[in-house]
C-alpha cells in the first residue's frame, strides 16, 4: 500500500541536524515531523523514525548515553521492536548503539581530531532499507563531522556481524580508526540502521554531493510502503 511517508525526526536537547534532516526528507517527498524528546508517543501513522545528528545532552558521560533514557526512546524502541524503520545519523547512530538497538559502540576518533570533510563511502550491502537504491560496491561521497565516530566491536562480534551481513557501509579511505572501516551498520532484523556520515547534508549537488538522496529516498520509500513486521508490502 502506498501512503504518505510520515517520518518522525526526534529532537533532543543539543540535536543540531534535526532541521536539516527534516528539510532533506521533505525535499524527497516525505511528511517530516519534528518530535520533542519529552513526548511519549510518535505521531500517528509514523512510517519511519530518524534520530538526527548533534550533541544530545552535551555528549555528557558518553555520546548518546543520556539520550537513550529520554521519554520518546521508549516509543522508538517499541516502534523498532514492531519492525518499524529507525535510522540514526551520527549522534543518532551513537544513541542507537548506547540503547542496545544497534551493535557496537562509537568511540573517540583514533587521532583525537574532529573529522569534518567529504569522504568516500562504499556500499557493502545494497539490499537494506537504506541502500536499496544503490548498487553493491557503489562509492558515495558524503560529509562526516564527528569527534567520536570510531566504531568498535570486538573480534567475535565483528565476525558475527560480517557473517550476518550487518556491516552496511564502509569508509573507502582512512577516516577515524573504525574497526573494519565500518561507517554504517544494521540490526539483525534489518529495520534499525545507523551511520556516521550525513546523507541529509548531501541531497543537492549544489552542496557538493547529491549522494545522500539515494539513501534517504530509500528510507522515504520504506516509510510510504509501511515497512512494519506483518505489514510488508
Amino acid at each position, binding site marked *: 500500500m502506498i501512503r504518505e511517508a510520515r517520518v518522525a525526526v526526534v529532537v533532543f536537547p543539543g540535536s543540531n541536524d534535526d532541521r536539516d534532516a527534516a528539510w532533506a526528507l521533505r525535499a524527497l517527498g516525505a511528511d517530516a515531523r519534528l518530535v520533542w524528546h519529552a513526548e511519549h508517543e510518535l505521531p500517528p501513522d509514523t512510517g519511519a523514525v530518524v534520530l538526527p545528528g548533534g550533541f544530545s545532552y552535551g555528549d555528557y*558521560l558518553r555520546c548518546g*548515553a543520556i539520550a537513550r533514557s529520554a521519554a520518546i526512546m521508549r516509543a522508538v524502541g517499541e516502534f523498532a521492536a514492531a519492525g518499524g524503520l529507525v535510522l540514526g545519523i551520527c549522534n543518532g547512530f551513537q544513541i542507537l548503539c548506547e540503547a542496545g538497538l544497534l551493535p557496537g*559502540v562509537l568511540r*573517540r576518533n*583514533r587521532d*583525537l581530531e574532529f573529522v569534518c570533510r567529504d569522504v568516500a563511502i562504499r556500499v557493502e550491502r545494497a539490499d537494506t532499507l537504506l541502500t536499496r537504491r544503490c548498487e553493491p560496491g557503489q562509492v558515495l561521497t558524503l560529509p562526516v563531522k564527528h569527534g567520536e565516530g570510531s566504531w*568498535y*566491536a570486538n573480534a567475535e562480534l565483528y565476525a558475527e556481524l560480517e557473517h550476518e551481513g550487518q556491516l552496511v557501509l564502509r569508509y573507502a579511505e582512512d577516516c577515524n580508526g573504525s574497526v573494519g572501516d565500518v561507517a554504517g551498520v544494521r540490526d539483525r532484523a534489518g529495520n534499525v540502521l545507523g551511520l556516521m556520515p550525513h546523507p541529509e547534508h548531501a541531497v543537492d549537488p549544489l552542496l557538493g554531493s547529491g549522494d545522500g538522496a539515494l539513501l534517504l529516498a530509500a528510507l522515504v520509500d520504506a516509510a510510504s510502503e509501511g515497512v512494519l513486521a506483518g505489514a510488508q508490502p
Partner: protein
Amino acid sequence: MRATVFVRPKAGILDPEGEAVRGSLRALGFGVGGARVGRLVDLEVEAPNAEEARAQVEQMCRQLLANPLIESFEIEIEGQAA
C-alpha cells in the same frame, strides 16, 4: 550512602586520550611508559545499607555509567571494603 565509581577503558582497547597524555608527559621529561584515562563518578545513593547501595550502583554501571563493550568499572562504598 556515598559511593564512588571508577570507569576505565578495558585492557587491550586502544585509548587515544591515554596515548596523548603519555606523549605529553614524556615531552615534559617524565618517564611514563603508559597512561590510560578513565572517569570517576561520586554518588550519593539512597540505600539503607552498604550491600544494598553496592547492588544499586552495580545496576547503574551496567545500565548507564559504563559501556561493557569497552569499559570496566570498580565500585567503592564508603565504610565498606572494596
